[in-house]
């Protein structure tokens, strides 16, 4: 049907050309800046700081080596990984049960909980870093990986709840009920039937939580001093760091995120489409 309806419209040759040109332009608009960053990263520090710039990399690894050996980068990378992994685990383990409850039960207070989750959208969440800084000092979580992971989980949790809610809703209740009638307890039915079916989706939303944390700058910069994550480290060295360090840092920040987005591309539209309604 869709192919029929588009061909019936009968676009002129010029219009078709304009569409193709727009698509190509928009692809270049997205890709060229990333290419330029990567080209910078794989050029020698002298070339990065020199003028005029070359538009293709010299495949010199000196910049990237300089960055990786720079004091604090190693631990920042490690902290980023730790915080992001913790965020991923926390937001899924706290969010998925809630998503399951929302998809499978009718109960009093369900509406209130949904409002609480949706409310987070209207709030600038990185600002949480301010009161949390005070709270964490009281409980000894200041400048810790766990403390930052908690704040990042607050960012990722609403999405984890809504995404898992839509994942569970996508699985017919009858599959679970069939398992119950065939001898499963609720827990067994979940493990044997529901879990294997939602696993890819859960993995995708876990990756999503990971990326949220990996990319977050403000809370990370406010809440950590000794245990900086990579974005916090980069932000605080913006003033004094040489260009090749900034660009290599940017590239290291971007590349894992690109890989992750590639991994979850199948779920991107389904998850966001439903989770955001």
């Amino acid at each position: 049907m869709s192919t029929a309806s588009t061909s019936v419209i009968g676009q002129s040759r010029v219009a078709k050309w304009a569409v193709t040109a727009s698509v190509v332009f928009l692809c270049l608009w997205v890709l060229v800046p990333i290419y330029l960053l990567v080209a910078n990263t794989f050029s020698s520090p002298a070339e990065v700081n020199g003028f005029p710039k070359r538009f293709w990399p010299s495949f010199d690894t000196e910049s990237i080596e300089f960055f990786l050996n720079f004091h604090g980068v190693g631990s920042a990378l490690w902290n980023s990984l730790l915080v992001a992994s913790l965020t991923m685990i926390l937001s899924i383990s706290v969010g998925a049960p809630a998503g399951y409850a929302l998809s499978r039960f009718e109960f009093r207070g369900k509406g209130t909980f949904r409002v609480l989750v949706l409310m987070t959208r209207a709030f600038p969440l990185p600002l949480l870093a301010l009161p949390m800084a005070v709270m964490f000092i009281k409980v000894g979580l200041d400048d810790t990986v766990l403390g930052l992971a908690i704040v990042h989980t607050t960012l990722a949790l609403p999405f984890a709840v809504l995404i898992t809610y839509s994942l569970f809703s996508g699985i017919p209740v009858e599959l679970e009920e069939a398992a119950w009638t065939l001898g499963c307890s609720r827990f067994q039915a979940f493990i044997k039937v529901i879990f294997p079916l939602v696993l890819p989706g859960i993995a995708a939303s876990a990756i999503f939580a990971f990326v949220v944390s990996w990319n977050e700058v403000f809370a990370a910069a406010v809440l950590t001093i000794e245990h900086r994550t990579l974005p916090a480290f980069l932000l605080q060295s913006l003033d004094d760091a040489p260009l090749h360090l900034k660009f290599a840092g940017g590239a290291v920040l971007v590349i894992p995120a690109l890989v992750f987005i590639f991994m979850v591309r199948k779920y991107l539209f389904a998850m966001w489409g439903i989770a955001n309604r």
Partner: protein
Amino acid sequence: MAEIKIQEVAKQFGKTHALHSVDLRIEDKEFLVLLGASGCGKTTLLRIVAGLETATTGEVWIGDRRVDHLAPKDRGIAMVFQNYAVFPHMTVFENIAFGLRMKKVHNAEIDKRVKRTAELMHIENLLARYSGQLSGGQRQRVAVARALATEPDVILMDEPLSNLDALLRMEMRTELKSILAQSQTTTIYVTHDQVEAMSMADRIAIMHQGHIVQATSPVEVYRNPATRFVGSFIGNPPMNFLPAKNLGNGVFEVGGTRFKGPDVNVDSLEFAIRPEDIVVGQGEMQGRIRVVEPLGSHIQASCEVNGTLFRVVVDSNSVIKTGDMLALEPTADRIRWFDADGKLVPV
């Protein structure tokens, strides 16, 4: 022994009553069909027996065990769902074996029983496939096989054929009836399709607005509907109804004609007759044809008798057209009478 007793079972969802104190007893090895329009409570009742829904009040017994507080897994039941609910991440073999594995049956026995049930359902060549590789009809077979494999005391079926196309549905109906008869398992079968109900059931329980209005054999349901609703719900086309004025001494005036009816002390009743129980071309009752619908085996003619719709069935060779007047004679022993509450009045 697995008779099912449903005693004073009621279900409320918030303020709406899905079921009003239902009593029903299903004999061991009986095939009972719960028949009704959507929203009548038939699926709710089935799900209460299965344990997927909790009754607000009342008791459910299977055999000599009270089961209404047990989880579905402890009730000795198996269920076939409308959308089949074949697990998509398991092969057909694993689907059929699922219930046996949960019962910790050992592997050799599982192998034997899965093969046997698969052969019974003619799906032995599909055992290695996944649900996604099966047609609707095949999935249906897997769902039934999965239920039979556990050798349950009771099989519960929730509109199992309604997602199949017409031809396949008829085929499966016959096959399912013979397989279930062989297995001699007590069965509750929910459907909204009266042909399915009539053709398969030992007994039909007709549900309407959360009540069971009649539970008896298919022929009895058809011939002697307990209420006006049953008469209008069963049969295609349904029963004809005409207002009947009591002239005294058991004589009623119906559509300008007099009929012998029950001798009761009320001003009026309702006269009812099935379309095929009317002899056309004789009698005093007159009907003007409004619509003629040739159906191959016969012609269905919708007439108007004293301003009321009145359907008759005539031979396909008859030459009739819209506007014609037809003489109609209801067969005397097939006439039924209903009172103002819609209850059957015995003659």
